[in-house]
């Protein structure tokens, strides 16, 4: 099980790989669409990569609720619990 800090760091790497954004830009309060300018196609790629990395399942209908990086970290953390 990963800590929230480890999940954030792992997500930041996935976002960097997909979009080129610096990992430091991926902060808990940042909105994927508003702040990080991530479109729905990139978001799905990030979700699938996060599933593989953290060994969780993020249902498609859940993805729209993951507005901020913090939402995603919490979801993954709870799913791992």
């Amino acid at each position, binding site marked *: 099980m990963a800590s929230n800090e480890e999940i954030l760091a792992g997500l930041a790497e996935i976002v960097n790989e*997909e*979009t*080129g954004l610096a990992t430091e830009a991926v902060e808990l309060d940042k909105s994927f669409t508003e702040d990080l300018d991530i479109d729905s*196609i990139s978001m*799905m*790629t990030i979700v*699938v990569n996060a*599933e*593989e990395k953290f060994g969780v399942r993020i249902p498609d209908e859940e993805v729209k609720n993951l507005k901020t990086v913090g939402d995603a970290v919490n979801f993954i953390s709870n799913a791992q619990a």
Partner: protein
Amino acid sequence: MARKVVITGLGATTPIGGDVPTMWKNALKGVSGAHTLEDEWVSKYDLPVHFAARCSTPALDVLTRVEAKRMDPSTQFGVIAAREAWADSGITDIDHDRLAVAFATGIGGVWTLLDAWDTLKEKGPRRVLPMTVPMLMPNGVAAAVSLDLGARAGAHTPVSACASGTEALHLGLDLIRSGKADVVMCGGAEAAIHPMPLAAFSSMQALSRRNDDPEHASRPYDRDRDGFVMGEGAGALVLEAEEHAIARGARIYAELAGTSVTADAYHITAPDPEGLGATRALKAAMFDGRIQAEDVVHVNAHATSTPVGDKPEYTALRAALGTHVDNVAVSATKSQMGHLLGASGAVEAVLTVLAVYERRAPLTINLENQDPEIPLDVVTSARTLPAGDIVALSNSFGFGGHNAVIAIRSL
């Protein structure tokens, strides 16, 4: 009087150079871009052909990792060539509603398609990337170039196998003459050096099997030619209405004087042995450009190095140009870079424009014993083209009986 259309920008990434200056220098020197493939899949699948002509500059040396992730390799090559052509044109200020794209491919996103299929089988549907469809669609390259340039007067993708790149120029000329656009980014892109297309082209006996000597495998017009060599890459040309180019003080390479497209309606893959469709295409392009046989000094031939393909083109050239064909300097540049399929016409158009602009014909390599049934004046050593008003033709023919010809006139 139709609008005159000129060429003001050139771009290319090919097996003999990752940009136009490098490609042109090598084309005049005579080099081979064909090499043994080191990929594990060659032996894994026991492919009958072990070599191909890869782009000399990998796309990832030019594009950022994130840019490349969203593009099939064919689109990567197309965007690289289009960016070079655009920069070369010097256009900085343009009405984007009057800028169109005509960017061709023969096969499209074959790497993306087959990678996604492998992923589906091995890892399941969840792992199939959401970008798969826009990356594999044949119009992906035209769409990416349109996005990159902000071209809003339509983005078109002519698909006619190995005639595709030349057909893009045919379409581009039409778009400007008919007033639908003032500037068109034309080109062709291909990236099909993948085990499946190599196996498929091998099955139809189209590829050279000269595995022990790849550099000498592509040998158009040679008695011992045994098939083409698979190449990859892209070519791009900026077409512009002459008045538009003059108004901005552009450097103009040449005029795209005439184009044509015909169909053999003879056989799905074999060329008409009498070259009738090709003859009609040559005559139609010359008529379109108000060109007499005597005006033509140079031909960049389709000449793929297949036993059955090279001769009908000669027959067609003789039928269209008459005895003047004996005075024409013919270059078979696939001898150097292999066959870029849907990109070949665009890359060869770039070479033909440069030949007219610089009055030098690119070389044909590997011609050791010229096929006596093809008595053309083949350019095998440095050759200067005449001064004065000159015209050069470039031919492309594709499976499906597609014939496309362009005529480039000096200015």
